[in-house]
């Protein structure tokens, strides 16, 4: 693997390794695929611009997640976004049950969404999420707990803890 910044191989590696993850976390904020794709592209551009150095792969992953979350938040708060309506139809290939779960997660308050996703999808621990989001571990714990309760009430069933 040629991991020299900017080479075609490296860009290919980045996209293959992280684009799904970034689309997913951005989607959890933006609730539409086109905005999530825009943010994913912006994250990669920032990455190539800044050429950050990482201690390991986990650090690299956390950095990308953090940038995606920040860009998503910025976009949500931008006047442009507030005054535009997202395109209808996301063309995500899901069945009804998946869709219910996705919609249930997306209906959570913003602060719970990324935590739930990082915990359940990316398998991060509370401590790791705390590092990525820069929120206290105690807050992560309580927000995860509340997010889980909300999900349970929406989906009308118990939720797996692990």
């Amino acid at each position: 693997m040629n991991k020299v910044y900017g080479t075609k191989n490296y860009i290919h590696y980045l996209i293959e390794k992280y684009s799904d993850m970034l689309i997913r976390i951005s989607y959890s904020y933006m609730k539409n695929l086109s905005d999530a794709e825009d943010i994913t592209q912006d994250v990669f551009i920032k990455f190539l611009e800044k050429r950050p150095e990482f201690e390991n792969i986990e650090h690299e992953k956390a950095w990308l997640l953090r940038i995606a979350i920040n860009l998503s938040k910025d976009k949500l708060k931008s006047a442009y976004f507030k005054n535009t309506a997202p395109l209808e139809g996301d063309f995500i290939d899901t069945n009804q049950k998946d869709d219910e779960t996705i919609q249930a997660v997306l209906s959570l308050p913003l602060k719970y969404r990324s935590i739930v996703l990082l915990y359940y999808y990316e398998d991060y621990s509370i401590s790791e999420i705390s590092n990525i989001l820069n929120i206290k571990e105690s807050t992560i714990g309580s927000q995860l707990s509340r997010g889980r309760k909300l999900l349970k009430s929406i989906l009308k069933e118990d939720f797996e803890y692990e």
Partner: protein
Amino acid sequence: MNKIKDSFSKIKASDEFKDKLEKELLNTQSTLKTTPSKRIYYKPSIVAASILFILLGVVSLKLIMNTFGTDDTNLDGIAYNPIEKSNKEDNNSDSFLVDNSTNEKEETNNNDNNNNNDNNNNKGNDLLVYADKSEPNSPEKSLSTKNDISSVNNTPNEKEKKAPSEDSKDIISSHTEKVPFRSISSNEPINAITNTLSDNEVYIPKLELPTTGDIKLAAKMIPLIVYKEKIYTRSPIDIHSKNAKNFLGKKLGTTNLSINELSSHSEYSTDFTSNIGVTDVYSVNGYDEDFRIMTNIPLPDGTSYPEFYDSLNGLSIKTGEDFFRKLKLHNNILSAKFQTFDDWNSGNGISYSINDFNLLNSFVDSLDKSIPYLPENIEPLLGDYGNNENCKKITLNLKDGCENLTFTVLKSGYVYYDSPNVYFKIDGTILEEIWDKLSIMSIN
């Protein structure tokens, strides 16, 4: 695979998007600056030769000075004088400043002066070490200086001992205040440390933001607002939307610049600069504006998303009251609960209500009287307390609407609140009572 993982795995980048993205990035890459990395690499052999050359130069210079230029006859032929070195260390901003007026080793006698430290900081048996906060204050490092300075009697002036002046206008610039802390021997009992430190105050330095583009720190950004030359960081306290209006004070301004991990240092210097997007900032009814401000982002469903931002840096804490009075805990507790460490850590939502308000009031009183310790001084002695045996989490909800003030209570008698980064040693008897009662509650 859990249900969320299963469902969200369907959300992924399409092949079409990936292809398009790859082309875009290749185009972008070609237009980006192609300046090489600022890091310069040297061959190890060149580095070794340079170091050797510098060392030879220094030794030669010392020898020449000792031969021709010194009045101190005791130093004839001596290239290195430990006493001189220690004195120099005291005046060097990069080194540790030491107050040790006796020649005795402090490990053996630090129990004797329990009550005299307020008057005798410069003459007691304690070894006070002043560290430049720009250097890591590891206890190991402090200990390593002990031997070097054990025979030196250098008393730092009182000005150096105090927390740095609040006059500093540049809240962002890296500072070099001398912050008092005490070195602790790793084999010293905790109680001994506690006693000898009973009147020391700790100083929480002003929040330092990276002055250079240290990319490795980039993923550690704290939500913050700059206001009146102070940095307010997001509080862990929750506020329910319905209570937001009770807290909203006067509007102070609107965050006017969106900074992020990639912003330059100079972008942190303007009032209402923040990394939380553009939103209005308010004072908080009932709380000191120097300590707490808030935002209240309106949501489409008519509710809002209130958040507190607290300034808990650039702060001197002599007793717990200096900090905890800001939280307004007295006669303000609406409800309380506690969790075992495992329940809290796994986020399983299991908690136990605390209905004994006498116990809670004792807890709050003891917090006020508690003694602060910087983590670097006490954590090596506390060890890994992250388990049910040694740690519980007490969470308070206040009558005024503040929710989830969580305190980490350690069996060893220390209480840790999320911010500032300080441990508070509370009265042992009260802690024992609290610990026992909570343990009984969890069993029942």
